[in-house]
């Protein structure tokens, strides 16, 4: 007997969208078995994980807040990944964006510099500067690749550590809150340096709307613009892209700039919308989780929007399960891993057909 994977003649568009849904269901079933093995009710776990968070206004809001940085970063990364360029350093670009955008909030703290212009410009300036610095930071690995042929995977990843240590240094030193008993945090941002809330009382900051706009705009650019065509072509058939007259170097810089700017924007939105100050660490690994989100979303902006929400759901559902069912924290991580495995498996089966041959031919 031998087991083979034979390529399928054609791939249907429907299958490409049904597969991840099937994968989600498969992951839920296996997750349910795990819950049962822990001696809890899988049905209750299903409700706590997936239904309750989707039926309450509070958790829906939290879902959007949690998904926002993931979606913004992943949409940017999808441009890189589509072009077969591997920006692994979105975490660093996120941190730089948050730090540098936040710096404006520190500079203007307590009304400084607002005597002439007022304060209306502070939030837009923070967003723009955060995105711009993320962009510049992402151009470092892109330029090293274009000029010297250095692998962007290594350089972008190593720049993450530099960004983390940079923020750590600034928050412990120059940016430290003078009244903070030497603890490594900055002052709390002024209200004029904080993102406006979309709904009173909640945590639904304006960054959520930005993430939605970013995803929709990216979907349009990717599907309809010549630039989107170029990105897809370079990734799909690089030699054909050269024949089409597209410059790989320019494209490398462009996609890194886009993903860096979006990661930086996500960073400053998180700092100015959610955290409200700078700390030694401003990200629980969003830049890395977004890589998973990008692939779960099949590198399509709308898919990423959905995938970001699904992943956020597993975090929030996981917390609910810890609180209401006393299920262990590690179940959330296990489930996320399970989900990724199922999606990858589904991906293989949409491209290949499993053929089991027995000794019949002999």
């Amino acid at each position, binding site marked *: 007997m*031998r087991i083979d994977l*034979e*390529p*399928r*003649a*054609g791939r249907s568009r429907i299958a490409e969208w049904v597969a991840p849904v099937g994968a989600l269901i498969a992951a839920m079933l296996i997750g349910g078995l795990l819950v049962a093995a822990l001696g809890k009710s899988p049905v209750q776990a299903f409700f706590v994980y997936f239904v309750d968070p989707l039926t309450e206004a509070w958790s829906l809001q939290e879902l959007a807040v949690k998904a926002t940085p993931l979606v913004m970063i992943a949409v940017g990364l999808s441009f890189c990944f589509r072009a077969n360029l591997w920006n692994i350093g979105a975490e660093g670009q996120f941190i730089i964006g948050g730090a540098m955008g936040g710096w404006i909030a520190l500079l203007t703290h307590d009304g400084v510099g607002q005597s002439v212009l007022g304060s209306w410009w502070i939030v837009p300036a923070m967003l723009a500067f955060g995105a711009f610095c993320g962009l510049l930071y992402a151009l470092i690995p892109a330029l090293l690749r274009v000029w010297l042929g250095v692998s962007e995977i290594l350089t972008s990843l190593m720049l993450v550590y530099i960004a983390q240590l940079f923020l750590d240094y600034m928050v412990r030193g120059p940016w430290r809150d003078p009244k903070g008993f030497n603890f490594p945090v900055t002052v709390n941002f002024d209200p004029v340096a904080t993102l406006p809330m979309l709904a009173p009382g909640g945590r639904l900051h304006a960054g959520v709307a930005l993430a939605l706009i970013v995803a929709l705009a990216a979907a349009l650019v990717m599907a*309809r*613009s*010549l*630039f989107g*065509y170029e990105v*897809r*072509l370079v990734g*799909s*058939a690089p*030699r*054909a*892209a*050269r*024949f*089409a*007259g597209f*410059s790989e170097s320019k494209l490398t810089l462009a996609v890194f700039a886009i993903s860096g700017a979006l990661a930086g924007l996500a960073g400053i939105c998180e700092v100015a919308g959610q955290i409200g100050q700078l700390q030694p660490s401003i990200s629980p690994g969003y830049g890395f989780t977004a890589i998973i989100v990008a692939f779960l979303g099949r590198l399509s902006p709308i898919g990423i929007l959905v995938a970001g929400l699904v992943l956020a759901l597993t975090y929030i559902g996981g917390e609910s399960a810890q609180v209401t069912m006393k299920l262990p924290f590690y179940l959330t991580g296990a489930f996320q891993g399970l989900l990724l495995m199922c999606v990858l498996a589904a991906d293989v089966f949409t491209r290949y*057909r499993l053929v089991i*041959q027995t*000794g019949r*031919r*002999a």
Partner: protein
Amino acid sequence: MIEAPVSKDQAAAEPLVRIRGVTKRFGSFTANDNIDLDLFAGENHALLGENGAGKSTLVKMIYGLIAPTEGTILWRGAAVALKNPEEARALGIGMVFQHFSLFDNLTVAENVALSLPRTESLKTVPDRISDIASRYGFALEPDRPVWTLSAGQRQRIEIVRCLLQDPHLLILDEPTSVLTPQEAEALFGVLDRLRGEGRALLYISHKLDEVKRICDRATVLRHGKVVATCNPREESARSLAALMVGSQVKDVKAAADRTYGGERIRVDGLNLPAGDMHGVSLQSISMSVRGGEVLGVAGIAGNGQSELFAALSGEAAARDANAIRFDGGAVGADGVTQRRRRNAAFVPEERNGHAAAPDFSLSENVVLSRHAESGVTRSGFVDYGRAQNLAGSIISSYDVRKAGPDPAARTLSGGNLQKFVVGREILREPGVLIIDQPTWGVDAAAAAAIRQAILDLAARGAAVVVISQDLDELFEISDRIAVIHMGRLSEAKPAGAVTREEIGLLMAGTASGDARAH
């Protein structure tokens, strides 16, 4: 179905390989349908068919690379189920592939040793290579590194690899496609000896003249089915082609009187260093092509054809803008898009991944070379509706067969995709067309259509450069022929005033003037 002319000796003998009712399906697609085939010791058996007729699938099953869905393969009368090529080789089946799998930086002996069982000592390999080379009358130096060898010599390494296993059946996949006429002659000598030793040969080719000369029997496949088994010596090239295609092939007709316009392509002393260590550098290339004229560039693979195409298309820009002029304008330093704006069009050799993106739909592939045109893109956005219309007119004008309204390029057969790619460029009505291997791996009917389209374009006043390794093709459509060898281009000669032998000598690097002088 035509009766198989089996000789009396063969009728009495047990066939070496007997294939009965073999079917291979990939999903809903049937690549081989109920194939019957007998191969006898001591015969050279041709396997003929268009691209996609199922030749490769059948051969891969005999060589153990894939397993049949139904049917049996008998080896000396016993059914066998080959799990992998190792088992096939153990039985005595050898195969020489069209594309060589050699390591350029290793020597001949090292490459041969790689294919031998681990128990073999590397020390004895050079002697064994020399033995075989002298027995079959060809030269092969065991200690030469492979990168210094010609395509013909590389092929001999592959043949030696097979012969070291002393095969009873040797499968050859398009063995002459990379050889000069002279090298091909040498190969035929070797094949004759092998047959004389009682080995069976399965010879895959689309060159009908060759098959008529050296093969004893021919099996013709069409759409995965055996349509005929015949003696090729008793058939004409035309009748064989008709069997393959299933209908009469049209002759390509050039306009009776060609009139030439002014000079549209001029290349002056073009130099271009090689892009990488295995590439070829172009050295002082010069050519001139007038409107209405087709210039053929002959040559053996790997002598600078790809580099010449890249230089003319702008994929590799020259330092000197004046080295290349289209319609008088210096374009040497321009990129592809700028040259296209000067009404030039290009068709590279490789369809999948170079001329077209395999995973993109046909309409998206229209955008690939035509995004600079007004109408296809507007203020940075692609008008996919317009692209679809263009794709539709290419498909109908060039009779592109496809499944579904706007399928991915890779789902098209080679010939149909080539027609699409050629149509995409010619429908623009370019003034300059550079085309590399226009009918490589394309079935006879499609090849004829493509050649006709090229001639018609020239007749409308365009200047065309056709780079090809197929001499028949060049003689059929060129007004003048030049030869590229080691990155240098010979002087172009009128196609009517030059012989195949002269071109062959130029391809092998021997100056034609010397050959003629005697």
